[in-house]
């Protein structure tokens, strides 16, 4: 109350010393809050980098631990020699070692599943999942955004679509996982090409004359397709929102000019809107997909397995379409799930540390660098596109 009194006396009076101190304290509290958040992030990223970097670097040329990126995940063996020296070896090296030195004394032999070798399996799996997710989600997402931004008129339909997009964005990732398990994995609505349909599971199977194969509606099982599509469903709201934003940024004048020149609606969109929105659409979508691809919960029961000896295309049977179908219905390793397996499912042991920090660091590096590149690119596009 006293404030209002003084103000009414002289509105241009400089604020009192006390008010200045109060201001200073208040503002610095807000500043401290901000920097606390940033510090947390820096500490987490820094710690993982510090412990993870040594795993993927080597002291001699080519300075990068290529084995870590090119070997498949396998069991890690740990033992002591007669002199008491501790040795850790991947399983293939261990077998070679035993064959070449059958007399070697091995004490305290311990094995750790999935903790040895490299991460080519999880890397490839994640990559393929993201490809499936990206193709589906970009296709549906961009089309939906074009409809919402270019065609739709205000009405019930538009409201319903917007409401469901908004609600989809809030659905927990694990619920997407459950949905994926019930819909893509277990329900028999999804067909595969195969020579040997699983008659018990299959709804029906179309014989594909003249080959002796079938298009069998038996569900995809835990597979690349099921996992990728679950991720795509999850990425959809993010992508639609991102695309709409980019489409909105294209000035109305472009459309009006194009329509006035006699272009059809589709010509207008194709030539006057999409080319200018495309960079924004792509960067924003990549950002959204990166975020979704980092999720573990949706692929836990739709695609991911803890260990696999072969890459998807090595394991696929048959030829042509059958080979492709078999490859896409393989279960895969995935980097985030691999991290979960080596940290959450195995009993903790110092022997696992290299694999744990190595995979986490690689994963974080991938995700952060893709995100950073798209943020930078987006900023640049925004700057360039001034109309």
């Amino acid at each position, binding site marked *: 109350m006293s404030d209002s009194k003084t103000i009414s006396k002289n*509105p241009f*009076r400089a*604020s009192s010393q006390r008010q200045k101190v109060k*201001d200073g304290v*208040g*503002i610095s509290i807000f*500043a401290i*809050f*901000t920097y606390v*958040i*940033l510090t947390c*992030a820096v500490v*987490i990223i820094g*710690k993982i980098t510090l412990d993870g970097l040594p795993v993927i670097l080597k002291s001699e040329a080519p300075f990068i631990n290529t084995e870590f990126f090119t070997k498949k995940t396998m069991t890690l063996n740990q033992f002591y020699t007669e002199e008491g020296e501790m040795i850790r070896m991947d399983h293939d090296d261990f077998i070679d070692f035993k064959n070449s030195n059958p007399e070697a004394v091995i004490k305290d032999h311990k094995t750790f599943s999935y903790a040895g070798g490299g991460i080519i399996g999880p890397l490839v799996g994640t990559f393929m999942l993201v490809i499936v997710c990206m193709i589906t989600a970009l*296709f*549906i997402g961009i*089309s939906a955004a074009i*409809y919402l931004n*270019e065609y*739709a008129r205000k009405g019930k*339909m538009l409201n319903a*679509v917007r409401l*469901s*997009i908004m*609600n*989809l964005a*809030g*659905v927990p*990732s*694990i*619920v*997407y*996982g*459950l*949905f994926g*398990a*019930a*819909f893509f994995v277990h329900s028999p609505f999804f067909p595969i090409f195969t020579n040997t349909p699983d008659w018990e599971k299959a709804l029906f199977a179309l014989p594909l004359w003249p080959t002796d194969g079938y298009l069998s509606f038996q569900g995809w099982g835990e597979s690349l397709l099921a996992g990728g599509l679950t991720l795509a*469903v999850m990425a959809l*709201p993010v992508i639609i929102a991102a695309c709409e934003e980019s489409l909105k940024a294209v000035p109305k004048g472009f459309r009006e000019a194009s329509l006035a020149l*006699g272009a*059809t*609606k*589709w010509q207008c969109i194709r030539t006057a809107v999409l080319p200018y929105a495309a960079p924004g659409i792509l960067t924003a979508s990549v950002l959204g997909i990166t*975020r979704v691809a*980092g999720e*573990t*919960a949706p692929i*836990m*029961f739709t695609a991911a397995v803890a260990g696999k000896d072969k890459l998807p295309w090595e394991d696929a049977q048959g030829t042509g379409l059958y080979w492709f179908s078999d490859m896409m219905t393989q279960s895969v390793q995935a980097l*985030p799930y691999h991290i*979960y397996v080596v*940290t*959450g499912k195995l009993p903790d042991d110092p022997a696992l540390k290299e694999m744990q*920090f190595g995979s986490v660091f690689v*994963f*974080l590096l991938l995700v*952060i660098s893709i*995100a950073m590149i798209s*943020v930078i690119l987006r900023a640049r596009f925004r700057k360039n596109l001034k109309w």
Partner: protein
Amino acid sequence: MAKHFQRQGRRILGLDKQSWIKGFFGGNAGISIVVLFLICFFLMLEAFRFFPSHHEGLQVYRKSGQEYVGHLMEQADGYQEFVSFTNQAYFAEYDARYTKERGIKDSWDALLGEIEDEGEDLAEVLEDARDEEDEAAIAEAEGAYRTFLKDLTASVSRQSIDSFGRLEGHDDTWEKLLLAAQTYDPVEEETPDFVAEAIQVQKEGMHSFTEAKGEIAAAGTELKDLRSKLVAITAKIAEDAEAGQSARARKEALLAGATKMEGEDKAAALEEAEKIVIQDEFPFGERVQPLEEAKEAHRQAVAKMRTKLAVGIAKLPAQLESDKAAQLIAQIKNGQERFLDNVDRSLEKAQDWEFDKDVGFFESVAKFFFGRDWITNSSWTNVYGLLPLLTGSVVISCIALFFAVPLSIGAAIYVNRLATLREQNLIKPSIEMIQAIPSIVLGFFGIMVLGQHLQDWSQAAWVPEFLQIKDRLNAFNAGLLLALMAVPTIFTLCEDALNNVPRAYTEASLALGASKLQTVTRVIVPTAISGILAAVLLGLGRVIGETMVVLLVAGNRISMPDWGQGLGLMMQPTHTMTGIIAQEMPEVGEGTLHYRALFLVGLVLFSISLSINITAQRIIKRLGNV
């Protein structure tokens, strides 16, 4: 007029090209509605099928008498806890009081073991010599045995003999032991005086405690016997009942299958179906007769346990040297009353049990939503109760929001209104970058780094006792990490809300002489409050649905939080709805009761996040986002 510019294209199914294109895009937009619908449909499809099977399971649980035995088991388990606490206290006290004496006894036993192992042959020679009463041979054998003992005592390692280090600081006693060992006679097998004395001292000193311990251990023998007897009976009943049911199912399947078959197959199937004998109604009433008869014995066993337990606990010594023992005994004494109350209650429930009382359908539904236990993979019976998981989720979300809300709102205000342009350009993308950190990485950080550090820090002197962390993985640890996950969500939405406050408001406030801070706290924040509220709600939605962090870090112990501990319950390990789905889903078979229970949990989670979302949208709409 517009017609003039339009080219007429080919029509397909009465629609021209433009309409087809529009329809195509519209169809893709409609997919989001379809997806939302499908998610609801598939969740409900599995989840709602949970209730009938759950109800049926509970019926069998009651009819077979397992329900009765369940109450009995509860009592016996509670009692067993007292026994194990007493044992722990006993040994803690023993160790504290008679470290040296135990050291002497154990070391002597270990030494003897070593001597007898290594000197077996020599001892036999000596014994033979004595039997034959050949003086020269005896002297020789004794001499050999002495040298052997000397060598052995010289070479023996103290760590391996005194493995608990109880004789540390008693070097003279150790020497005494070695000396005594050197004069040990394998035939006479005498225990040296000081060792015998040490044993005697222990025995006398622990006498009263030993007695109390014995009393407590004896209190529940009858209850335990009754329990194992009845468990066997009811398990058999349940098994037989299930066998009857599966026989019926098999017969029905065979008969149904036979209608599709022809000729010999049909005859064979029919014949097989004929062989399966089905009892019309499983005779539960007859089979559970032993349980009805055991009711009286049960009452008596409980009464006996009550009195004996009270006697035993009263006998527990009050003067204790070990802090741990004192703590345990205090726990025993404190828990006594509550335990006895529980015993009375479950006794009453057990006595009320009747095999033919119907389990209401709504009772079974309520058992899921208000059940305080979630027990799966148990050899006895699976229990599905949502409450511990729901409270776990809520506790963790509260912790997360407690940290995330002030931090992110503060940061949003700072960046939006107070920071310099350069700071803004640095901070905004950085916080966006935090959002890009995958949750599994945060969980990993919690399990590998943060957990240990938090535990170490909580041991500091200034931390009150109830906040000290006993388990590395707990709700607090998970809450902190989830706070970091919620920050970008809340920050971004808050910033949007602040951005939407018209410039004129700020200008007017400043022109009236308000300071920067006053403008922010009294004009801008109140104007944007609806947006901020919505941001917090959406942050809550994000936190409650987060999976990997809680799965890795929250400790995954399914129990109701101990409200008696006040804020200390933050430091307990807990389990969450998301965590349980992620943990158990990969292990259950499709279509089982367990599988459906997990879907039901998922449906609850889905409804919670959906309602949070809708509320947030309402708030924005109602209060108007300025």
